[in-house]
């Protein structure tokens, strides 16, 4: 029991420690404050925050639909929603390309409206939202099922219309799950690479997020790549720590 647990912990921790030992601390500050690094970090934080917001806006209704209604095809829909979890992100990127790309399903109409999504920051947000949405939906749907419907029935019986029940009963009851789901999807968006590089491209300040920058720096400046990886890791640890405190408090 204890040994596998220790092995499991080591399995996660050791690579992080190993990376920390490879960081050239002497030039660390210099490495991570280059113009391209800072732009990548800023872009990553902005797009991930936007994606997390998009996940809330799209994911809350979806989770409610999955947890509180029944219709033919519901279980199929539930499986489909989770697809981005198991799909390689590159495949997600290709799928998005065929959806809103120039030659894609909606591309023609978008082009008529003068909108080009590929190669834009919007594309980054779309790619991140695509891969992060299931995290929010899963955690929220689970919480909704656990909470059950008895409080909602009681509220309706006291004369509260559905919108009020949602705002004053349903959502407050699952608030911890909503918060942790949002943080998870933010973290997932922050780490997103495959779908972004496939669908959005890579241009400094526009679409080159931190993971893309790290991957690129690996080609020319491995030390900068390691330093940036370490920064990304620290950001991830901070997010998780803050989220856990929030949720358990």
């Amino acid at each position, binding site marked *: 029991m204890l040994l596998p647990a220790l092995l499991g912990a080591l399995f996660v921790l050791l690579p992080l420690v190993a990376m920390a030992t490879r960081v050239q601390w002497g030039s660390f500050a210099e490495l991570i404050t280059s113009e391209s690094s800072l732009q990548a970090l800023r872009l990553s934080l902005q797009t991930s925050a936007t994606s997390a917001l998009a996940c809330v806006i799209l994911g809350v209704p979806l989770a409610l639909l999955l947890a509180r209604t029944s219709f033919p095809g519901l279980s199929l829909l539930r499986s489909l929603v989770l697809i981005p979890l198991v799909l390689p992100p590159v495949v997600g990127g290709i799928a998005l390309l065929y959806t809103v790309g120039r030659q894609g399903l909606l591309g023609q109409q978008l082009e008529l409206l003068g909108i080009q999504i590929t190669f834009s920051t919007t594309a980054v947000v779309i790619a991140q939202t695509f891969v992060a949405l299931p995290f929010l939906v899963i955690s929220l749907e689970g919480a909704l099922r656990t909470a059950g419907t008895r*409080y909602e029935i009681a509220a*309706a*019986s*006291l*004369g509260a219309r559905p919108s009020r029940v949602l705002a004053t009963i349903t959502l407050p009851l699952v608030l911890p799950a909503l918060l942790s789901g949002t943080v998870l999807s933010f973290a997932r968006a922050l780490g997103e690479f495959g779908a972004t590089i496939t669908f959005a491209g890579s241009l400094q300040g526009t679409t080159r997020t931190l993971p893309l920058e790290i991957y690129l720096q690996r080609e020319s400046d491995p030390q900068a790549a390691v330093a940036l990886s370490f920064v990304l890791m620290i950001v991830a640890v901070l997010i998780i720590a803050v989220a856990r405190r929030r949720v358990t408090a």
Partner: protein
Amino acid sequence: MTLALEATVPERGLDVALDVADGETLALVGPNGAGKSSVLSLIAGTLRPSAGRITLEGRLLSTGALLVPPHDRAVTTLAQDPVLFPHLSVAQNIAFGLRAQGTPRRRAREEASWWLSEIGLGDLADRRPSQLSGGQAQRVAIARALAASPRLLLLDEPMAALDIDVAPALRELLRRVLAERTTILVTHDVLDVVTLADRVAVLEGGRLVESGPTADVLARPQQQFTARLAGVNLLTGTWDGHTVDGTLAGMMHESVAAGTRVRAAVRPAHVDLLEDDAHPSPGTMVLARQVTDLEPRGDAVRVRAGEIAADLTPQLVARQRLRPGDEVRLGIRAADVAIYPAR
């Protein structure tokens, strides 16, 4: 009539019609599975009838085609579980219905605090539901339901989950607050019926089999279920002008033609055991039966023999060494038997 209900739900074997008058408390009783909960669901709007109509104060709530949603019915349900909202304070819980119906915040708060003192919990306004005892929580639930001022209150065994020592105080609270409120009370407890209900309706197998003012139903039960609730033996037979089926005489307060189906009610405490060869006193009828079982009943022993229950003193039971299977002679005095027409 405030509530008029007429509904069938074939998949639940329900076919029922009942009315509740303005300000009246109707006790809905019946064995488990009789359909009591289904009737409440029909009225609350969580179950759609296949056919029929439900109106409340003249407003159509349900038909086979129409279903006014639960929040728009002015019908509030209080079940045995208080279901207080865990993220709201006690005062916010009570104010919930008022706020939902558009009462301004300040007035809702005032009314909530009035209700808090009404239920005797004035100093617990800011507590969370998790900090309340079971009895306190159910008081808050009552206040919350009533503060929403529903046109009709549905009580679904509101005291079934409470400790036996807090039930009386809560029953007293309900007796006080339910006066003049239109209420349907589902219960298994005769004490609830006699203290709270103006009328009783008996549901069996999805149908209304008996109903009437509480005192009448308990005094002249028509059904075995009601007789058990009233605590009497119920025998059914044909009136021959003097006795029931030629064996049982009793007090008949109305003139009934010979050949009419009648019921005879007698309290178990008024059923005697005739010892050995003792002769029955004049006016006592004797019924020969076989003992089925014995059980303790307060300071007496309840002896069941066929369809008749007799409450005997422990001394008598000991003297006779009564065992299941024994042949016994039971004596019933005509003065203790009430006879009335079957309906």
